[in-house]
């Protein structure tokens, strides 16, 4: 049993490492993702100049930037397999749940890197004061995990369809609405200085959302991958 589960983890890690390695060779989606996020951030910052923005608007802007930037890249991990016709080989290699886990962790890492890039720049360019850094980081972390958790399955669906670019955002938005509501609410509470207590409900919601979406994804991924 233990050797079986360690084999499972090893295979999932291998899928993850393979994706990271191919990404580092081409840097196709990494560059596009970072430049897209950077451009969006600069456009927002530039068009608003030094307008004194209220905290709730800042929280909304932050998540809009993250949402659109992630839309440009998170489907790539499956589209790549379909385009290079490597999906069939991958099917022979491992069970769907293994592949899903590898791809999910890859997307989470990608999104966390994105947040790592956008957040400091956002704080500097928009002149945001963060009264309580730890809950701020936790809200962003959970938001990123939920975002990746919900969109990885959508990415797998979109990779099998014809018009991918527009479809990914269209399919993702309704599913991400609860996440956006909770993430914006939590960020707003933390930036207003309410700390853990203010963001408590939103943090609980973000955790519940990520758990539910990832659990359903694992069950449904089987059908998408073999369909």
């Amino acid at each position, binding site marked *: 049993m233990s050797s079986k589960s360690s084999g499972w983890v090893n295979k999932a890690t291998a899928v993850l490492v393979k994706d990271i390695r191919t990404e580092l060779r081409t840097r196709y989606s990494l560059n596009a993702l970072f430049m897209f996020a950077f451009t969006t951030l600069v456009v927002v910052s530039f068009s608003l100049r030094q307008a004194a923005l209220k905290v709730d608007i800042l929280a909304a802007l932050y998540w809009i930037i993250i949402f659109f930037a992630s839309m440009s890249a998170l489907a790539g991990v499956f589209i790549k397999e379909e385009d290079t016709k490597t999906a069939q080989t991958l099917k022979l290699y491992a069970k769907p749940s293994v592949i899903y886990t590898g791809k999910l962790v890859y997307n989470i890492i990608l999104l966390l890197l994105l947040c790592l890039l956008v957040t400091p720049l956002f704080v500097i360019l928009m002149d945001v004061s963060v009264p309580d850094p730890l809950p701020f980081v936790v809200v962003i972390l959970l938001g990123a995990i939920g975002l990746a958790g919900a969109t990885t399955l959508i990415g797998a669906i979109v990779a099998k369809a014809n018009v991918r670019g527009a*479809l990914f955002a269209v*399919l993702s*938005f*309704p599913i991400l609405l609860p996440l956006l509501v909770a993430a914006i609410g939590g960020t707003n509470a933390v930036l207003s200085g309410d700390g853990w207590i203010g963001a408590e409900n939103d943090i609980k919601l973000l955790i519940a959302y990520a758990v539910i979406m990832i659990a359903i994804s694992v069950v449904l991924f089987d059908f998408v991958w073999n*369909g």
Partner: protein
Amino acid sequence: MTSMVRKALQFGLFLLLAGVIWFSFSTPAPQQQIGQASRIFYYHIPMAWLTVVAYAVSLIFSIKFLRTKRELDDYRALWAAEIGTMFCVLATISGSLFAKVTWGVYWNWSEPRMLSIFLLLLIYGAYLALRAAIPNPERRGILGAVYSIFAFPTVPFFIFVMPRIMPSLHPTNSVVNQNLKFTMGLEVRLIFFVSLFCFTVIFFWIYFLGVKLHRLKLEHAES
């Protein structure tokens, strides 16, 4: 069912609906403060209700299709979603008009029920857009089914969680109070439930007609 019985039932439905339309306008307005505009309650709520019922039917047959892979089950899921889209658009428009009359705005993003009907509209739209983008019929069915199952958990979130976070503008207490007990008069209740019944019957009538038509098409294609 013989054609005579069917005709009689259809005529009965016609009479009931005609009664609903007549009495919904001839009786006093159901909500005194809102006045005449509150009559939309007899039509708007059945539409919103059928939006949810249609999604439930579509969801059930999506799950069934993933097991059986029968084309007819896929068509049932699609057809329910298509009728649901129609009712969803109608509920959104009628709700929006009612919002203009009572709150002075057509749309308010901090109203949980408006968000939930809008969410359903988005899910229906995304589902139909996804199906349109996949040429292979079996794959179209599978991916569509997966999407509608995956989108489902967001619906209870907006119906049960959001109203607790946000204050609702909806006239909830005037129709149904906190304990879900009706506080309206017998007359209003009677018209409302007959209207709800008629709308539901019409939905399933359209639904079964479409399914029957598709089944005949499939049989015709086989022979």
